[in-house]
């Protein structure tokens, strides 16, 4: 098979579980948590490392920002053999009661993005895979890392829906805040809905430095490095559990 158009990968290049950070530089950070890792390919914002963790072949592919870019990565990764997609990312929390920083295991996503609207009618729900949610919660418990579970709100325009927006975001986000949605980010609805439709597993774990109501109270960069490292540890243990579910019975 010719290598995929954007990710430049061929079958065999990735494990069944692929971690999907948005940030290009985070691919290396995540790969550094594997027991072993090798650089596989890079084209545009798509960098892939593959390696082993506890004898399970795992990969990380950076997607760049947004649903549009994430959907390309997922479609092409499926063609080269990926089955489980775990987004490891960051976002802006929407609930003041969350700790700063916090780690969130996402159970579903508000579909405020355009990419999934092109794929699916708006009433189609973006749901995290049950196996992934349960494996993440079990892993967090085993690692003694505190996580919260709930919904993410995915959207497309960072400068409309972030603390750096010139718009009144707390008014825009009020329906989601009132409905208990935990965090705003950009890719969960794509990762979850597209994984469902392609009969793959999709999951998301997010770290947040602080909430949109109190941007001044955000956690430090150093604290966020630890939070993302913890998210990666949970994601890796999740990959092992998924491997056990699929191959050890």
């Amino acid at each position: 098979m010719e290598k995929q158009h954007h990710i430049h990968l061929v079958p065999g290049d990735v494990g069944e579980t692929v971690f999907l950070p948005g940030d290009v530089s985070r691919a290396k950070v995540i790969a550094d948590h594997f027991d072993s890792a090798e650089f596989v390919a890079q084209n545009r914002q798509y960098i892939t490392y593959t390696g082993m963790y506890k004898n399970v072949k795992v990969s990380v592919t950076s997607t760049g920002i947004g649903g549009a870019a994430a959907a390309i990565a997922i479609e092409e990764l499926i063609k080269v053999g990926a089955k489980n997609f775990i987004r490891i990312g960051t976002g802006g929390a929407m609930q003041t009661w969350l700790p700063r920083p916090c780690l969130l295991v996402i159970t579903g996503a508000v579909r405020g993005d355009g990419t999934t609207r092109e794929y699916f009618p708006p009433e189609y729900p973006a749901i995290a895979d049950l196996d992934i949610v349960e494996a993440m919660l079990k892993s967090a418990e085993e690692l003694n890392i505190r996580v919260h579970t709930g919904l993410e709100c995915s959207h497309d325009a960072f400068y409309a829906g972030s603390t750096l927006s010139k718009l009144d975001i707390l008014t825009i986000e009020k329906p989601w805040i009132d409905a208990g949605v935990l965090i705003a980010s950009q890719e969960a609805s794509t990762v979850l809905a597209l994984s469902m439709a392609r009969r793959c597993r999709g999951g998301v774990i997010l770290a947040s430095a602080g909430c949109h109501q109190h941007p001044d109270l955000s956690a430090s960069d150093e604290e966020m490095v630890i939070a993302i490292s913890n998210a990666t540890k949970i994601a890796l243990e999740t990959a092992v559990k998924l491997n056990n579910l699929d191959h050890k019975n």
Partner: protein
Amino acid sequence: MNKEQHRQHHIDMVEGDTAPTVLITGDPGRVKVFADLMDESWKVAQKREYLTYTGKKDGVLISCTSTGIGPSSTAIGVEELIRIGTKNIIRIGTCGAIQSFLKPGEMIIATGAIRGDRASEEFISIDYPAIADYRIVRALIDACDRLKVPYHKGLIRTHDAFYMESPWAIGDYKARLQKWIDLDVLAIDNESSTIFVIAGMQGVRSGTVLLSGYPIFEEHNGDLNQEENIKKLVLVGIEAAKILHEKGLN
């Protein structure tokens, strides 16, 4: 404030009338099936289509409330149950199975629902996902395993107009359903997306288990054994309620 002032307008109940887990079903007649399957049970309230029994099974307190057909009456029932302190809402219902591999007597456990209803849109925009709480999904799976009842887990579709998407519909109902079949939707019902949205927005756990029949496009003369299968459906709901109780989710 006097407890009576909190008596809910339609379900005609106050806090304490129901268990932490309430099974809800469209058909008031099915509440009686529930009542008969419990070790002991008593009628709590009846008003319009809302009939409630509470009872005990293996020492666990569980309630069952009928809501009538459709999102409008279900939205009222769910909102009022939440207002009297319900923690887990599990819909036990029937449906139109739309995947050819489904068989009568199998359970369909919903992970989420296509929001084809209009009631939930009055609460929040269509972007918000109608998803079943993962702990209820797990409880329903474990309940089916314990009772050795075959099940399928996946997406369902909720809509308002029964006579648009059922075998008795006018015109080509299969053409209307084809896009949902292609998206792996297992079955069609009239209530679940409404329940998931209203409960989800308020941090209340909800889920759905549906009894499959023959796929609705297929000609068949087989015996549905519906009465026995309805009992199995209710027993799955009761077992799931017990599991939630065992896990301290109440």
